[in-house]
């Protein structure tokens, strides 16, 4: 009786389970074949070997800029943690003019290699750490008044007015004001603030450098950020420094500008709003 009652149901159940199992197997096999989306790994093995950094060979001013580190070093976390790198290939000779003292052995690999050229003569640089802007402004005003020809005193007005051409009829000789205006315009043409990046439009970078006799940038170019230093503001500082180098040499300035320290305030807040 039990056998008679169970037989049809049992057979049906077996068939049903069998077909489900078969369907699952087919389905499983199908999905196993769908590895089209798998990701093949890419490994960052290490920092690449350093390039051959040639000693100075260009005009003195550019040489100086090359030997110094114009902006703070890139944070180490800008590149993934490197594994020690094999020795770099032997560097080729300097591609253009024969360098007076080529350095055939590149420096050890670093995440952010810093060009070095010890053979370069160091121009006199003025230490500018811990810049006190208020004290500077005050001292400049004092210095400019008796001299009567220091255009820097004209730069103490409102920041916005500084770049307005009409605002340049400030104290000092007309020549100085005009020259400073020209310098400002050169910097404006060369400065490419990153207004499209979140945070990039809020950065204010103060770049300090010294002009050589030919209007070139000599010595260390230092940057100071208003606000926190992060990847966006570091990139913004690079852009400000780049503008200074790109605009140099600054010619047709009054003689007393040369050898002086110049401080440029790059204000992305203003630039991106305009």
């Amino acid at each position, binding site marked *: 009786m039990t056998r008679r009652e169970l037989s049809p149901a049992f057979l049906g159940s077996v068939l049903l389970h069998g077909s489900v199992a078969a369907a699952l197997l087919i389905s499983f096999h199908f*999905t196993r074949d769908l*590895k*089209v*989306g798998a*990701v*093949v790994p*890419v490994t*960052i*093995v290490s920092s690449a070997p350093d*390039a*051959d950094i040639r000693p100075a060979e*260009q005009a003195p001013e550019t040489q100086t800029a*090359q030997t110094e580190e*114009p*902006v703070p070093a890139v944070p180490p976390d800008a*590149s993934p943690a490197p594994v020690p790198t094999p020795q*770099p290939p032997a*560097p080729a000779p300097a*591609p253009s003019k024969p360098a007076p003292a080529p350095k055939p052995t590149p420096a050890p690999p670093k995440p952010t*290699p*810093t*060009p070095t050229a010890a053979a370069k003569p160091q121009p006199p640089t003025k230490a500018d750490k811990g810049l006190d802007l208020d*004290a*500077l*402004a005050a*001292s*400049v005003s004092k*210095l400019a008044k008796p001299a009567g020809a220091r255009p*820097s005193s004209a*730069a103490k007005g409102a920041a916005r007015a*500084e*770049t307005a051409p009409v605002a340049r009829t400030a104290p000092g000789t007309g020549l100085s004001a005009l020259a400073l205006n020209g310098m*400002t315009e050169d910097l*404006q043409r060369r*400065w*490419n603030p*990153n*207004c*499209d*990046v*979140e*945070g*990039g439009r809020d950065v204010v970078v103060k770049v300090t450098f010294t002009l050589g006799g030919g209007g070139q940038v000599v010595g260390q170019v230092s940057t100071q950020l208003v606000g926190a230093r992060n*990847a*966006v503001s*570091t*990139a913004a500082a*690079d852009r400000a420094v*780049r503008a200074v*180098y*790109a605009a140099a040499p600054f010619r047709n300035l009054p003689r007393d500008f040369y050898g002086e*320290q*110049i*401080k*440029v*305030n*790059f*204000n992305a807040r203003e*630039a*991106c709003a305009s």
Partner: protein
Amino acid sequence: MRLKSLMLALAATLFASGLAVPAAQAAIEVNVNRGDVQPLPIALPAFGGGQVGADIAGVISANLQRSGLFRPLDPASFVEKDLNAAVQPQFPAWKQINAQALVNGQVTVVNGQLVVDFRLWDVFAEQQLLGLQFTSSPENWRRVAHKISDQIYERLTGEKGYFDTRVVFVAESGGRGTKKKVLAIMDQDGANPSYLTDGSYIVMTPRFSSTSQEITYMALRPEGSSIYLFNLETGRRESLGDFKGMVFAPRFSPDGGRVAFSVERGGNSDIFVMDLKSHTTARLTADPSIDTSPSFSPDGTKIVFNSDRGGNPQLYVMGADGSSPRRISFGEGKYTTPVWSPTGEFIAFTKQVGGEFHIGVMRPDGSDERILTSSYLDEGPTWAPNGRVLMFSRESAGGVSKLWSVDVTGRIQQPVPYPGGGSDPAWSPLLN
């Protein structure tokens, strides 16, 4: 003693008159309040190493150009040829063409492995900004190019890149009424498309997990709808289970441990969340209205969703447990498909107003609403992992749907270079 006093007096006088050294250093101050805002000119000569070197440079160039933040220079303008990646470039030659940055590199194959060295140079400061080496299998050269693009992008803008990513979407072919919809995946630049379903059923709303190479999507068959999880690396596919009613609009939580989705029963849709480990389900909304399109905040504590409980579709934010829902959109028109940005700063949405559809963004509190695009039918935004670029679908009046991208400023808007039709894109996180 008298001499010492005299010296001190002289020093004091000099200092007071502003002639002392510290004052002389103060010098000249200039304020620059305007700039030449433009995409950054960058030179990307072909990498050494033959055709693959040229191809890698080409992919990098296209990536950077599409971002809108860079302007790759015409290789025909390059003065210095045959760059050697181990030697410093001749900077004057690159200054001459006004390249602000230069990328060069070398490709070699070592023991069957592709080895790519590259360097990023600041042309005017004459310094190396980056120098990295990548290895991979030779057929994987595009990913190497994307990784290099990310490095360059991050170093020069300060933002994380988004090039080494993929997009899952619904590939569409055929006309209205006969449209075939297939689940597909491609690189963010439209390359390497792969198709994950055969088109025998409709696929909708695929979404990436932000923690793994896993997607969730809705499959619509004549017998009903299901939500699936699909692991792209193993090929494993599983259903979330059977629900009474139609299930749709799934989305992962930021930790990948939960999926929120909508269930429609008798004309009323509500939002549920399932724990993927325990498979327990919790109901988050119980309003007699259509509640749908849930999207988690990046910290997982809140959910933005779309509801017509106020009369027409608007955006609401509630706790991830369904608590304290509050409306955040109050503009004209209908707001749908909200998506929280990976950075948490914005919520992107589709807005229908004035006979057009728009992609827009607003702050999570509803402030600072910005419309980024307008067309016959723009919808379904998804965020790149850096939170700066959105991808969406744009359908023309003729019924052809294509994938487009736009940045958060709305300035950089362009089609995604995928040749076919597509809709419902979902951006992956950065690949490892």
